[in-house]
């Protein structure tokens, strides 16, 4: 009971401190008053500390099973293992919002600490924007969707976490993906602030890019973990379903991926400054849009959050953010392009980056349209929905073009292409032709596969040939020019992911079989034998386990039944992973005569997706760790060392 009041109080204090920080910071930016900026910044830290306090209170309430709180009752019970009780923090609507706000507060504070050194009005405006966003979230938490609502009667036990979420994946995927979502606010704040203050110094670009990289890395990890979890838990043999929840996580990632590439053009050639700021802002707007879509339940989705009252609030917030960003870009982006830089030739690195950006935004547009189609057509009468075929048809050609560009783009020089450029292109061209011929020999006739695999091979050849060239000429550039070679590593990882996706997409085989104990079934050359099943009782559920012999391994797909939750069932798949293919067994049903029904998938190269994803993230992280930090803004700096952050 006391914890509920304590937490609600911390949230209210956070709203007041955040609001104060926002107002003061904008005033300080307007008047260019470093002392006021400093106070506003500290108020932001205090608001973040209040959020942290609220988070700690909620976590304590969960762990101590304080069933006077509605949230604790609805998301945990006494039989749930303790790690999952703790994970209940982000297992529901209100808690996940609090977690999100907490990450926003912590990352925002970190960004402000590092920006304080840089001084100037940009820091003031950035504080104001971050504080406004934080205050909005805290307000929603305190007033609309509080995790600290109390029950009049304290029940003896809770309802428990949904069985689907009682899994190890629950401990890693949601915290990473929610942190990814929250982190997009930081680059957004700095992009808007530099427009507001009419400053686009290299220091701010570096600072914004650094936090955009952080957001990108978190979001990549979140997407990858989400795919992994869906594949291992949901039991439909897939890692991606084009569900709105997945789509809204993908769109900001696409925009940020575009930004990480086009920011190179700004650094090298001083162009695309406004476009880059626009991308950073769009990424955040997509995050807010996604939150609205997912939390308001207005589009049909398999995994809907409990429909709640926060939908209209997020719609209002989204409208405010769009209006603010659009106005800012319209009013402040009138900076004249640097005419001293000669326009780049059509076949150059710069053009390749531009084309890549356009294609990525094109993919994002396809995904966006697919996500909002039910909404738009619903308003016009006759709600229509699209499934995977739409995304494959519309985004597939764009992905193919991106892959081809991945093979050519890195080899193009910033200036005019010359004979050595053409010579460098021989490796990817050879790889593409060889792969194409190999596919024809292997009797692959699907046009999509005949395009995807050769393009992927060419892209891999490009990255490898660049590594080869560096190793032959000057191995030390691998470290000195690490952003470039890190990028090639990420490209190689992407090729591995593409190979995995293409192989599992075009080559998946599935079969439904009913087997008596002792009987065998063969799918795609893999033979599995059903040896029998038994019941097993665990702390919070009972499960029926079927033992399936596969080579010298025994796979144990099972069906769990949760008695405390009205007998809700949960299927646990069993997967045997090799680099070549996954054998994926789902126990679909059991019959009274002792036989069991299995759905068996053979998914080629799925392990490549996980490995490639890790390589992509590694490449980007290795390529960017240890780079020189932003240089303090020297001009206009009035107060420096006297005011520590």
């Amino acid at each position, binding site marked *: 009971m006391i914890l509920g009041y304590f937490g609600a109080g911390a949230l209210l204090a956070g709203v007041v401190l955040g609001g104060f920080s926002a107002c003061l910071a904008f005033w300080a930016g307007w008047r260019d008053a470093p002392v006021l900026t400093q106070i506003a910044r500290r108020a932001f830290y205090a608001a973040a500390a209040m959020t942290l306090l609220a988070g700690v209170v909620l976590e304590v309430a969960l762990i101590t099973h304080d069933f006077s709180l509605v949230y604790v009752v609805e998301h945990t019970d006494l039989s749930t293992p303790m790690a999952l009780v703790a994970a209940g923090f982000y297992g529901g609507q209100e808690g996940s919002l609090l977690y999100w706000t907490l990450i926003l507060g912590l990352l925002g504070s970190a960004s402000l600490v590092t920006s304080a050194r840089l001084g100037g009005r940009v820091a003031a405006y950035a504080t104001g924007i971050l504080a406004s966003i934080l205050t909005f979230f805290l307000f929603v938490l305190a007033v609309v969707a509080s995790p600290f609502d109390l029950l009049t009667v304290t029940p003896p036990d809770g309802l*428990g976490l949904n069985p689907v979420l009682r899994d190890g994946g629950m401990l890693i995927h949601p915290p990473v993906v929610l942190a990814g979502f929250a982190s997009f606010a930081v680059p957004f704040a700095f992009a808007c602030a530099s427009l507001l203050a009419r400053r686009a110094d290299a220091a701010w670009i570096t600072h914004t890019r650094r936090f955009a990289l952080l957001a990108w890395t978190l979001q990549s990890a979140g997407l990858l973990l989400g795919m992994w979890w869906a594949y291992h838990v949901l039991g439909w043999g897939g890692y991606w379903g084009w569900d709105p929840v997945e789509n809204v996580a993908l769109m900001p990632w696409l925009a940020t991926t575009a930004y990480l590439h086009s920011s190179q053009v700004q650094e090298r050639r001083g162009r695309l400054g406004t476009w880059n700021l626009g991308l950073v802002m769009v990424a955040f707007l997509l995050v807010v849009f996604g939150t609205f879509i997912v939390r308001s339940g207005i589009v049909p989705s398999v995994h809907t959050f409990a429909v709640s009252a926060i939908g209209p609030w997020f719609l209002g917030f989204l409208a405010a953010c769009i209006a603010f960003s659009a106005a800012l870009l319209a009013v402040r982006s009138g900076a004249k392009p640097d005419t001293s830089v000669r326009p780049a030739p059509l076949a150059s690195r710069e053009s390749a980056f531009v084309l890549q950006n356009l294609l990525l935004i094109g993919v994002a547009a396809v995904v966006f349209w697919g996500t909002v189609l039910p909404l738009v057509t619903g308003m016009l009468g006759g709600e229509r929905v699209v499934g995977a075929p739409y995304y494959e048809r519309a985004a597939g050609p764009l992905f193919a073009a991106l892959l081809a560009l991945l093979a050519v783009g890195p080899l193009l020089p910033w200036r005019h292409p010359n004979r050595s450029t053409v010579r460098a292109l021989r490796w990817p061209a050879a790889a593409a032709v060889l792969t194409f011929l190999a596919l024809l020999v292997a009797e692959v006739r699907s046009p999509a596969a005949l395009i995807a695999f050769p393009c992927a091979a060419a892209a891999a050849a490009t990255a490898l040939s660049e590594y080869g060239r560096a190793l032959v000429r000057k191995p030390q550039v691998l470290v000195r020019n690490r952003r470039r070679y890190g990028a090639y590593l990420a490209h190689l990882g992407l090729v591995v992911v593409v190979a995995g996706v293409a192989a599992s997409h075009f080559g998946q085989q599935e079969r439904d079989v009913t087997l008596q104990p002792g009987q065998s079934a063969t799918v795609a050359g893999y033979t599995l034998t059903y040896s029998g099943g038994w019941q097993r009782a665990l702390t919070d559920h009972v499960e029926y386990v079927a033992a399936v012999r596969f080579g010298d391994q025994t796979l144990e797909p099972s069906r769990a039944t949760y008695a405390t939750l009205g007998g809700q*069932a949960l*299927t646990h798949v069993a997967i045997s992973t090799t680099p070549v293919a996954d054998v994926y067994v789902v126990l679909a*049903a059991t019959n009274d005569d002792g036989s069991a029904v299995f759905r068996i998938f053979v998914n080629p190269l799925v392990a490549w997706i996980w490995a490639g994803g890790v390589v992509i993230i590694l490449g980007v992280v290795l390529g960017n760790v240890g780079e020189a930090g932003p240089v303090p803004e020297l001009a206009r700096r009035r107060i420096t060392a006297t005011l520590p952050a």
Partner: protein
Amino acid sequence: MRTLLRWGLPGLVVAGCVGYLIVTASGASAEYYVTVSELQSHPTTGDVRVAGVVQDGVERSGLHVTFTEKDGTASMPVDYTGTLPDIFKPGITVVVEGTMGADGVFHARTLLAKCPSRFSTQPYTS
């Protein structure tokens, strides 16, 4: 003007391609999302997704299942073969994707359980 041409033209070309892809793909694969009564008042032979509540009397044999799906007033028999969502049982809302057969039975290709409590359990009431 020249800059506009340099950046605007490729932008327009790519935007045109993306627009073309979106229009053709959504035209070819968008399905109507209707309730049982809407389907019965406007019968279609193409693929549709139909939302409704599963009624008592689900018959299963192995992976084959037949049940009745109903919304407020109308109901229809559904025939489906495949793995069922874990939460499938009478009383939940499902979305079936498939075609209405001439026999009056809906032949579902996919079956999704549309449950607002996917990420949270039923609200506590006592």
